[in-house]
Every structure is written in structure tokens, then in C-alpha cells.
């Protein structure tokens, strides 16, 4: 049985899975980290049902009812507080509806916030919502006496600010856009600052409050207040508009899985921006400049619109949360299929589907090359990153050998990412081993090819040296002998010189054969066709030679030539063939060589004996394949394929 715990520290550094042994595992409460109230302990329960792993019975059922009871408790507490807070206004009449709605909204905010905070990765978001709820309760206080009026008035605007902040974060746990990052503190500062200033400048007596209210007034001049009021009004509208723009931008930016949740959040954002940014500012404008006395209808309308907006926003949140839940269920289903993946590339494709991130890269640490290898076996280039984040995945022994390069939107969905990673851990490990093996294999092949081409260069140089050096010297000696012979009429001299000439001829022939055996010049110059023809001619073997008139890489041509030369020699010397057919053709990007003879057959490659084994080695060194079909008495067919990619 496996229990998981999540390190609550920066999840960008690691996601750990601690395997705890069977029955003796420590109680989860003891190992998970506590931060004060157990409610805010982000305990992670496996979101995907792993095949063959039963859920930990000790954990979930114990915590659930506890949490539910807690939520009910604070919900009731909030409701009671709201009743108390709005007590002066709870008389039958139009206002009762507003107060009830307010109470309902407050409960929603507080309970919703608490519930959200208990979800993994949503702790701060939940707290924000909870704070908005508490501030809302504060702002709903209808008692004129004491400091409540002032506090309530300031609190009213902070509700919107907190929710705005939440909307720019959810479902992520931090603000990523630089504009958002500038906007939020600015919004806080301006709204809070101006309202505090307003508090100081406004005298409650102007608003019809009796002297019972404690108001930190220093302002005497209504003019100053008016100025500040207008500034506040302008700033609020600007903030509302900017927030609207940012929310729309955020929606546009959202990709992948978060997209599904984005629309209800957009609606919430737009409604909030319009109501709190614009509508709310119309009311005080009207009361200040047109209706000097606080008109009840306008007041009622304003409060109702506020409450309605909050309801809509909470509704949108609810829908977003529901969509998120449905999505996770879908992801769980997909994850169940992923268990069967073994190939790195298919695994990567599955991850891309599950996380709705088509550009996701599965990377494996290559200690030898000190970098990351992608699923195809190539070294990954991480410099061109753009909006991607590298999420390392640490394993049982805390080492990081696997990482995912994901879109930053996906990286923010920590809970989802964590679940996916855990569910595919085994598959990831397999994929990693496979990729590393593949990379090693490719390295070996490349080094063999380098060796082969180096050898080829050496041989060609040797052949040229023989030609330019030794052969030319011998030839000039031959010319010298002919000159000497022509210069004399003495027959004895002629005879002697003829002897010398014969010896020289033999030497030249041997040298020629040697150079040809090392590397035939005609192969370099004219390619496989003429070279094979020449070899057949030298063996006096009737051959049907069909060579595609093109060139291939030099190492490949060299290997193909020598394999053919060997095969032709065998055909003549060992199997007594009378006819031979040689075909060289392209097969895709590979070279396909076929040599058929009508000799005695029965050729077997015995290990260690030159001939066929040598052929096989030549072919293998270039990563090719060689097949020999040689039934006794039935001729021999040799097929070789050389990859030329």
C-alpha cells in the first residue's frame, strides 16, 4: 500500500512520493505538515485511482465528516453574525430582502472560501475568498454607533478588491502576468488609500448621521472632501476598466485544461468590473451632485445590485469549480489508460492529451551529457522556452531524473500535474530507461560510422600515395629501361633489358592489385557502377550489373564495393558460378545491394573465417543488415542493406 504526502513548500522544486510500508505506516496526521488549523493542511489524496492500489482507508473517512462539520459550523456562525450585524435593519420591508441576500452571500463567501482553502494548491485562493467574506460581514454592519460605520464603509470597497485579486489568480496560485502583478498592489493601494483619506475628510454629520458615530474626521471643508471624492470616483472607474481589460486578457491567454474553467470566470470578472467599478460609482455621484439626501430607492438599488453581483460571481465560481471537478474526473479516466504506455513517445503523447498541452515535452536527465534528452532520443534545447516551465519530477530516492516541460498555465495547476505525475511514475521510469538506452545506442552507431569514414579516408589517401609515389617511380624506371633499350642495337643488351622489364611489369601489377585492394580509384571517381563492372571484368566473370546511376556516402559505397568484390570472388573461386547478377538500388534512403549467382551454394559464415564474416562486419559497422541465402546446389543470394539517413 502506498501513501503519498506532498511537501507544501515550493512545489516547483519537487513532488515527492514516499513509499510507506504496509500496516505499520505512521498515521498520516503525524507525517503531513500542520500549519495551525488542520483545515488548512493541504493533504493530497490520490486523485487518480491507481490500478491495484487500494485507497488508504485510514485517512479519508476520518477527515471528511470532520471537515463537513466544521464547514457547517462556520456557516452557521456566519449566518448568526450577519443577523446580528444587520440587526437594526431587519424589519419587514423592502430592505429585508437585501439583508437576507446579504446574509446568504456572506455564508457563501465564508464557507466557499474555507472549502476552497482545504483543496490542494488552493490554500491562498481559499483564504482570499474567506477574507472577502469576513470583510463583507464587516461591511454589512448596520449599526451607526461606534466605529462600525467607518469600518463598514471602508470594508465595503475592499470586498471587491479582494475578489478582483482572487479572479486574477484562480485557479493558479500566483499572478503570472506582469500587468496583473502591477495592477493588484496598485489597486489595493489606491482604493484603500483614497478611502482612508475620504474617511478623514468626510464628516458624518453631512451625511445625516447623528453624533453617535465615531468617525476619525479632521476635515472641515466640504470642498476638499468633494475633490477627494471626485478623485476617488475617477480612480474607481479607471480601476474597473483596467480590471475588465486584464480579465479579458487573462481569458485570452488561458490555454489547455484551464480553458474550460475560464469562461465562467470571465463572466464573473466582467460582472464584477461593471458593478463594482462602474455602477457603484454612479450612486454616490448621484447622491452627491443631484440628490443631496440619500434617496432610499437608489440606496436599495445599489445594495441589491452589489448583492446580486456577488451572487453571480459566486455562481460563476461554483460553475468553474464544477467544471474543474469534471475535468479531473476525465483526467482520471485518461490516466488509467496511461498505465499501459511503455514507449517514451506514446507516453509523451498521452501526457499531452491528458494535460491538453500539445507542446509538452517529456525529458530525461542524461548524466553523461549533462543535459536533458527528449523522448525521441535527442538532446533537448531548453533555451527557447517562451512560456514554458520545467517541472522536475523526483523519484523514490529523491533524485530528479525526469522532467516535464509544460505550458506555464498547466504548471500552475499543481494538483492536477501532481496527480498525473504520480499516476505515470512507473511508466515514466520505463520510458526514461528506454530513452537512455536509445541515446547510447545512437552514440555508438555514430562513433562506428565516424571510425568507418576515418578508415575510408585513410585508405583513399594510401591509394593516392601509392599511385603518386611508388607507381610513378616504377613507371619512370620503366620508361628509362625503354630509353636504354632504344639507345642500343646490341641484342644481348636488349635481352637483359627485357628481363628487367618483365620484373618491373610484375612489380607494377602487384602494386596495382594492392592499390585496388585497398581502395579502387575508379570507385571514388565514377561510383559503384563502373567499379563493380571493373571488378567483374578482372575476374573474367559474365555479370549482369544494374546500378542506379547515383552516388551514395563514400563509406557506404566502399563497403558495398568490397562486399560485392568478395561475393564475386567467392562465386568464381568457390562455387564455380558461371553467371552473376549484381543490383544496386535505392530503397527509400537506404542502399540495397543484391548479388545472385548460379553456383554450388552452401555458403555458411563460420565465425572467424574471412569472407562472409568480413562482409557481415563491414555491413554491421555502418548499421546495415546482411542476409545470405545459400541452399546447397542452388546458388547463392546475398542481400545487404545500408542505411544512409
Amino acid at each position, binding site marked *: 500500500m502506498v501513501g503519498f504526502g506532498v511537501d507544501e513548500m515550493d512545489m516547483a522544486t519537487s513532488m515527492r512520493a514516499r513509499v510507506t510500508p504496509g500496516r505499520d505506516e505512521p498515521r498520516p496526521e503525524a507525517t503531513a505538515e500542520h500549519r495551525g488549523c488542520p483545515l488548512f493542511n493541504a493533504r493530497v489524496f490520490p486523485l487518480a485511482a491507481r490500478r491495484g492500489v487500494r485507497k488508504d482507508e485510514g485517512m479519508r473517512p476520518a477527515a471528511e465528516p470532520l471537515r463537513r462539520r466544521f464547514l457547517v459550523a462556520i456557516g452557521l456562525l456566519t449566518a448568526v453574525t450577519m443577523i446580528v450585524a444587520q440587526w437594526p435593519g431587519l424589519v419587514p420591508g423592502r430592505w429585508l430582502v437585501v439583508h437576507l441576500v446579504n446574509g446568504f452571500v456572506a455564508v457563501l463567501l465564508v464557507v466557499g472560501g474555507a472549502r476552497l482553502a482545504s483543496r490542494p494548491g488552493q490554500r491562498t485562493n481559499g483564504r482570499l475568498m474567506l477574507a472577502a467574506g469576513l470583510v463583507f460581514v464587516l461591511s454589512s454592519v448596520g449599526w451607526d454607533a461606534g466605529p462600525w460605520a467607518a469600518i463598514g464603509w471602508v470594508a465595503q470597497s475592499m470586498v471587491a478588491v479582494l475578489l478582483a485579486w482572487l479572479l486574477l489568480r484562480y485557479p493558479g496560485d500566483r499572478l503570472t502576468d506582469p500587468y496583473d502583478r502591477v495592477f493588484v498592489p496598485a489597486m489595493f493601494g489606491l482604493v484603500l488609500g483614497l478611502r482612508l483619506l475620504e474617511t478623514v475628510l468626510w464628516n458624518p454629520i453631512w451625511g445625516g448621521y447623528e453624533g453617535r458615530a465615531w468617525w476619525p474626521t479632521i476635515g472641515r471643508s466640504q470642498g476638499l472632501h468633494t475633490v477627494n471624492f471626485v478623485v476617488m470616483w475617477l480612480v474607481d472607474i479607471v480601476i474597473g476598466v483596467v480590471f475588465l481589460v486584464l480579465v479579458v486578457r487573462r481569458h485570452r491567454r488561458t490555454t489547455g485544461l484551464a480553458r474550460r474553467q475560464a469562461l465562467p470566470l470571465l463572466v464573473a470578472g466582467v460582472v464584477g468590473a461593471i458593478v463594482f467599478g462602474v455602477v457603484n460609482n454612479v450612486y454616490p455621484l448621484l447622491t452627491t451632485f443631484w440628490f443631496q439626501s440619500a434617496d432610499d430607492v437608489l440606496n436599495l438599488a445599489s445594495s441589491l445590485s452589489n448583492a446580486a453581483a456577488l451572487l453571480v460571481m459566486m455562481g460563476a465560481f461554483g460553475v468553474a469549480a464544477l467544471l474543474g471537478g469534471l475535468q479531473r474526473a476525465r483526467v482520471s479516466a485518461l490516466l488509467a489508460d496511461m498505465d499501459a504506455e511503455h514507449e517514451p513517445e506514446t507516453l509523451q503523447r498521452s501526457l499531452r492529451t491528458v494535460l491538453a498541452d500539445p507542446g509538452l515535452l517529456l525529458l530525461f536527465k542524461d548524466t553523461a551529457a549533462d543535459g536533458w534528452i527528449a523522448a525521441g532520443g535527442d538532446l533537448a534545447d531548453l533555451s527557447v522556452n517562451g512560456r514554458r516551465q520545467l517541472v522536475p519530477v523526483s523519484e523514490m530516492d529523491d533524485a530528479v531524473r525526469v522532467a516535464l516541460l509544460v505550458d506555464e498555465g498547466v504548471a500552475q495547476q499543481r494538483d492536477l500535474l501532481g496527480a498525473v505525475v504520480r499516476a505515470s511514475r512507473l511508466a515514466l521510469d520505463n520510458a526514461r530507461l528506454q530513452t537512455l538506452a536509445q541515446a547510447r545506442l545512437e552514440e555508438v552507431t555514430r562513433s562506428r560510422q565516424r571510425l568507418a569514414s576515418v578508415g575510408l579516408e585513410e585508405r583513399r589517401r594510401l591509394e593516392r600515395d601509392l599511385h603518386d609515389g611508388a607507381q610513378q617511380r616504377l613507371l619512370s624506371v620503366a620508361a628509362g629501361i625503354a630509353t636504354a633499350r632504344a639507345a642500343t642495337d646490341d641484342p644481348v643488351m636488349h635481352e637483359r633489358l627485357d628481363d628487367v622489364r618483365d620484373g618491373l611489369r610484375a612489380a607494377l601489377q602487384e602494386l596495382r592489385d594492392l592499390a585496388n585492394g585497398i581502395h579502387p580509384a575508379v570507385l571514388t571517381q565514377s561510383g559503384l557502377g563502373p567499379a563493380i563492372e571493373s571488378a567483374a571484368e578482372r575476374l573474367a566473370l559474365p555479370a549482369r550489373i544494374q546500378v542506379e546511376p547515383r552516388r551514395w556516402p563514400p563509406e557506404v559505397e566502399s563497403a558495398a564495393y568490397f562486399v560485392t568484390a568478395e561475393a564475386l570472388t567467392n562465386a568464381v573461386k568457390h562455387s564455380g558460378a558461371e553467371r552473376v*547478377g549484381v543490383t544496386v538500388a535505392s530503397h527509400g534512403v537506404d542502399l540495397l545491394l543484391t548479388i545472385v549467382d548460379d553456383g554450388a551454394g552452401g555458403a555458411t559464415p563460420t565465425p572467424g573465417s574471412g569472407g562472409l564474416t568480413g562482409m557481415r562486419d563491414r555491413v554491421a559497422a555502418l548499421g546495415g543488415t546482411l542476409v545470405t541465402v545459400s541452399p546447397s546446389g542452388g546458388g547463392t543470394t546475398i542481400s545487404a542493406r545500408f542505411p544512409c539517413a
Partner: protein
Amino acid sequence: MRVVLCDDSGLFRAGLVALLRELGLDIVGEADNAVRLLEMVEGVLPDAAIVDLRLPPTFGDEGLVAALTIRERHPGVGVLVLSTYVETSYAVRLLQGNARGVGYLLKDRVDDAATLLTGIERVARGETVIDPLIVTRLLDRSNAAQTLDVLSRREREVLALLAQGRTNSAIAESLFLSPKTVEAHVASTFTKLGITSAPDANRRVLAVLTYLRVVGHSPEV
């Protein structure tokens, strides 16, 4: 006779120059690359040029290309291509188009003054010279031998000399036959083998060589 030499090996060139002088030829120019050779031929207009097949810069077939260029521009200059190895494919290339006054000999032939001299004189005269080694190789292929069974021994001898580029009179001399007999043999050889008869010794060399090459390849294995 005035000749020009082109070979990138100073050593070999020196030996060849000594030999040709001994044989009474007039060396009017020496070059070690194709460009220089062409300039020289342009300027000096010799009777014959002796060119190495492999020349700088690529040591591929610059010599062959230069030979064909000389033939085109200066039909009066015979070109003898020497090479350390003979390839049938090169021979065929050399003979494309106008086969007059071109020759292809193995460099080894320098050990025999008479052969070399004859070769040079023949190309200067406008004949075609093909190294017997090529011809022998082609004829010796057992399959070719079978097809050539239809020919009489005499006809085969005539064919061999034909392939070397000999004129009818030269063949008559070598085989101690009368020119008329040689003509008859040639005609019947061509008919038996199904080769279209060519008007002169040069053109028919190519025809014969091509034929022998094709015939040397076996049918379906």
C-alpha cells in the same frame, strides 16, 4: 613529330621525355595541369598531345575532359590518354562523338618503345587507339566467348584488332592477309554479330566495344 606532354608527376614526365627524345620526337611543351595544357596546345599546335588521365585539382578525369576539348577545338592534334589503370567506361567516353585521333593506353606501355611510338603516330594520323588489355578483358569473358562462337577463328582475330582501333590495312598487315579478305571478314563479323557497320575504323571501334560490353553481361541469372 612535335608533341606536348601533360602529367602532374615530374618524375614520370622526365622519364617519358627522355624516352621520346631517344625515339626522335620533338618535345615542344610540358604541362602539369589541364589548363596549362590547353594553353600550350593553343599556342604551339603540336602533332600530338600525351595526357595523363588523372590531373589536378581533383585527380578525377580532368585529363579525359581535356582530351575531348582538344579534339573539339583542334581536330588536327591527336591525343593519347595515358593512365595507370584502364577502365572500359573511360574508353567509351573518350570515343563518344568524333573518335578520330584519340587513344587510350595503359601507362605501363612506356616500357615498350615500339608500342608507344606506334600509338603516338597513329593518333597523330587520326586513327583510334584502344589498349589491347581492354579488348582482351572484354573478349575473355566466358559469356562473350560463347556468343562469339559464331565467328571463325580468323574473324575473332580480326574483331580483336578492330576493337583496338586498327584500320583494315593495318589488320591486313598484322594478320598477313589481303585488304580485300579483311574487308570481307569485317563485313561478315558485323553481320553475324548484328552490329551496324560503321563507315570508318574510328566509329566502328565504339560500336564493337559497346557490343562486347553488352554481350559480356549475362542474361537473366
